[in-house]
């Protein structure tokens, strides 16, 4: 497709529950990125993929966060045992070649942990 498609748009989870977000990158784009944006507006990088391979996961809180990009499936970001501070908008983005290239953002998935 011509846009990054993210689902769901909104998700509410009780503290300790699991949350899973999905992202379909733009067709032909090799790189996928996940960013977390909290109310302060700052973007926190979580993880990037080159095709199905993890490229950079330096931003991931590994004990509870995991992500995958499998062939012929939407990419996913999963949070086990959500915490209140996980409440944020999670943006997926994709780019054609990665470094220095324009990245295109999806509309985001708004996660609220209560």
């Amino acid at each position: 497709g011509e846009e990054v498609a993210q689902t769901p748009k909104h998700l509410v989870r009780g503290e300790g529950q699991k949350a899973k977000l999905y992202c379909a990158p733009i067709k032909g784009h090799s790189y996928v990125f996940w960013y977390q944006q909290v109310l302060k507006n700052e973007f926190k990088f979580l993880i990037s993929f080159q095709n199905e391979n993890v490229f950079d996961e330096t931003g991931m809180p590994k004990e509870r966060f995991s992500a995958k990009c499998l062939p012929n499936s939407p990419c996913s970001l999963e949070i086990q045992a959500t915490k209140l501070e996980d409440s944020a908008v999670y943006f997926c983005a994709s780019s054609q070649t990665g470094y220095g290239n324009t990245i295109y953002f999806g509309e985001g998935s708004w996660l609220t942990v209560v």
Partner: protein
Amino acid sequence: GQQVMQIPQYQHVQEGEDFTTYCNSSTTLSNIQWYKQRPGGHPVFLIQLVKSGEVKKQKRLTFQFGEAKKNSSLHITATQTTDVGTYFCAVPLIQGAQKLVFGQGTRLTINP
């Protein structure tokens, strides 16, 4: 790690006034990108600057890249209510790779 400082954090103007946001880095940048995020929306790419001293214009928006490639600015002439949103600069991280580091953003509000 690579960091970029963006100021101001907030700017409120009367419609028709000009607006400028600045980004500064302590290191030389290979390029800098600018994004706009409307309230409740997602970041939308505006432009990429690559060359030292580069100036690019998009209608009422003027983007500049410093001679030393360490700073950049976005200037909006005669703001309109449609300009409301948060403007972010973003720079590619050299170490690691394949990710953008975003500035803190400047939130622009406009009094009609």
